């Protein structure tokens, strides 16, 4: 034992990676599973004609206020907007000007806020995408750790190797290998016959076995 302080021994494979699986899944659920609908439709953002019409229809159905958007198409309604009441109350003119300026300003800031919210939403989608990537890259490792209870194991253990000459169910020219990854269920892979001594042989077998394992455990 070359460790100076045995109590600080390095963590085990399963101790290290097992919790990650749950945590990454939880993070993904928190990001994707919120009941609020997304992406949010930004009312102040630039609309296409179709989209704009849809939102007006919704407003009309909801409380009729959408109809007031059509005031510009009626002469008498437009006249209301230009009624000048300042004769009897001079402060009204100024108040209307103030209202128009503050309204324009509020609309400008509301639009700016919408733009920022859209960028914020984009960051959220980016994070969601990264979590998905994290899950894809790492899920199989933490799931392997999840399966692994014993300690003294090879990451990969070959249990049987057979070719057509030893097992007639194996197609001619192929080798069938049964193996386990840590404590996984037995995985069977069939590879084109190569000399067992060749370094390529086990690399191909291990690659295929991992592919199968990852495929089965893809979330």
């Amino acid at each position, binding site marked *: 034992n070359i*460790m100076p302080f045995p109590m600080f*021994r*390095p*963590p*085990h*494979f399963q101790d290290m990676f097992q919790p*990650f699986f749950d*945590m990454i899944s939880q993070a993904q659920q*928190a*990001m994707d599973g*919120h009941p*609020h609908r997304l992406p949010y439709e930004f009312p102040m953002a630039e609309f296409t004609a179709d989209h704009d*019409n849809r939102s007006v*229809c919704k407003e*009309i159905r909801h409380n*009729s206020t959408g*109809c007031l958007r*059509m*005031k510009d*198409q*009626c*002469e*008498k309604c437009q*006249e*209301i*907007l230009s*009624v000048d*009441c300042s004769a009897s109350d001079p402060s*009204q003119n100024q*108040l209307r000007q103030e*209202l*128009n300026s503050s309204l324009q*300003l*509020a*609309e*400008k*800031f*509301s639009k700016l*806020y919408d733009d*920022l919210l859209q*960028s*914020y*939403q984009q960051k*959220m989608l980016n*994070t969601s995408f*990264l979590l998905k990537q*994290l899950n894809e*890259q*790492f899920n199989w*490792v933490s799931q392997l750790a999840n399966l692994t209870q014993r300690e003294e*194991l*090879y990451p990969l*253990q*070959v249990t049987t*190797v057979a070719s057509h*000459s030893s097992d007639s169910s194996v197609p001619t020219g192929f080798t069938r290998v049964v*193996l386990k990854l840590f404590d996984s269920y037995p995985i069977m892979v069939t590879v084109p016959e190569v000399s067992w001594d060749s370094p390529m*042989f086990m*690399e191909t077998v*291990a690659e295929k076995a991992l592919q199968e394992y990852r495929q089965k455990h893809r979330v």
Partner: protein
Amino acid sequence: DQAVSDRELQEMSTEGSKYVNKEIKNALKEVKQIKTLIEHTNDERKSLLSSLEEAKKQKEDALTDTKETEMKLKASQGVCNESMMALWEECKPCLKQTCMKFYARVCRSGSGLVGRQLEEFLNQSSPFYLWTNGDRIDSLLENDRQQTHVLDAMEDRFKRVSSIMDELFQDRFFTREPLDTYFSSFGSSPRRSLYFSPKSRLAR
């Protein structure tokens, strides 16, 4: 017949284990890269959040000014009541007709109900609502409500995700550098020597 000896199986396991170790290392390296990207995105998000707070303050100030001015104008609405009401009576039928035409052409469903609802709305409305741009103000207030709701919902998600990711990234695995040194430490463990350097066991 057993065509492959136990020794050969052992050697194959050793060779295959090397490949698996290599793949685990690759996965962990990629995970570290993703971790860096997530942290970077999170920094950008935080800076965006302060811009949002600033914009929110500006928006709310402008909205408050708008509402206050609207109140002042409403208080003096009796001044031109007569001329305004006369115009309103002429405006209403045109507005109703234009709106219903639009609704029948674009929205298509439930025109009857919408017509009755609109009539009631127009009868209850005041021309001052138009005069003070009440529809634009209402639209702004509704947007404000929705924007707050959406930001709260997104913030809630980020908070939950951040807390999980903080816990995850505080793990010893993520705080130790470099990766290869970390893996070699597996080899130095008396209990774990087989995991990432299975040959050392054979040598012994």
